């Protein structure tokens, strides 16, 4: 799984859009979307929302949590407690996608870009410390209920390399006894 694939999964999340066209229901395999009525909110998968946005057929309604206050609050929670805080599913991927492709539909997008980046930084930092602690403990299991797909993907490569390394060292230590 790489970042593009994470994004692919995140694009299945439903978003609200305001179309500027009218059309009837489209029976997609993933479910019915529409009917579409100009200026009336409709709920579609993110990939479709972005596709329509690119073709100038709609504007996107950012999710509730994508506001300066919303993200600031998330950062506060994250930095004041040790365990990972609960975040919306695919929040990092969606935040990146929306800020990249429809920043004109997102109020305070510049400020949000910085805040989202800060959120990512604090979670990645937390991941580094907990990974080191985990490897040092020799434990074989860790609960991570609030990690998102993006963070898991990020952690996977370095974790794999680190644990292989640790395993080799441990095996050598055992053999030399």
């Amino acid at each position, binding site marked *: 799984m790489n970042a*593009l*694939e994470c*994004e*692919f999964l995140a694009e299945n999340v439903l978003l609200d859009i305001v179309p500027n066209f009218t059309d009837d229901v489209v029976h997609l395999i993933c479910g019915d979307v529409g009917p579409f009525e100009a200026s009336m909110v409709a709920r579609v998968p993110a990939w479709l929302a972005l596709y329509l946005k690119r073709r100038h057929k709609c504007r996107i309604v950012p999710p509730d949590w994508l506001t300066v206050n919303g993200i600031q609050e998330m950062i506060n929670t994250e930095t004041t407690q040790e365990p990972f805080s609960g975040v919306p599913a695919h929040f990092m991927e969606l935040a990146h996608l929306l800020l990249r492709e429809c920043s004109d539909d997102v109020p305070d997008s510049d400020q949000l870009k910085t805040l989202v980046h800060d959120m990512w930084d604090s979670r990645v930092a937390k991941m580094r410390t907990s990974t080191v602690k985990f490897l040092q403990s020799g434990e074989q299991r860790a609960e991570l209920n609030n990690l998102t797909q993006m963070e898991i993907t990020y952690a996977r490569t370095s974790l794999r390399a680190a644990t292989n390394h640790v395993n080799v060292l441990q095996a050598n230590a055992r053999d030399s006894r």
Partner: protein
Amino acid sequence: MLGEQALNLIKELERNPDIIPPYNDDLMKRCIEEIKSLYQQNINSLAELNAGRVGAEHASLLQARHAAIERTKRCMLAYIYHRQQRLKRYRWDYGGVLPSTIKVCLCEAEVRWFHEYCKNLADFQSGLGESGSCGVDLTVNMEPPKSLFVQVMCVKDYDEFETSDGTRYLLKKNSLHSLPRQDCEHLIRQGILELV
């Protein structure tokens, strides 16, 4: 030094990680000769041992030669194996026709392997689905799709190109086009088209 020839085979691949260097027939032959020679020496030593003409300490010589034989054999197989892995990428990145610049670097067995590999893949693809006529091409849609069309510039003269919806385009050098992403994936990978 025992086994040095074989090591050179591996070093050759390491020095050129991204390409397939010309098949080193010469080095391969020398490795074979080295194996044969060591093997013969072992046969002779074994005969001497059994006849009591040499002491039991010669057994370790036998072992050392055998280890060198196995190591050389392993390096040779690894050489073939890794070249095959690089060759495989050609099918996935460029299609089933090898450009002559690549072909000239392969030995006959490798060219044959490539054709058979492509055929195996084709057989697998046509065996997919219940009707077996799905026309699945596993070498396209390698990345998650982002759009239906892509903007491309033609960097080499290609001539006429027909897309899956029947539209014909004349791909002359430096011409710009908006083409169905799926149809031009291969041309992009072959370097005929470039994304703009």
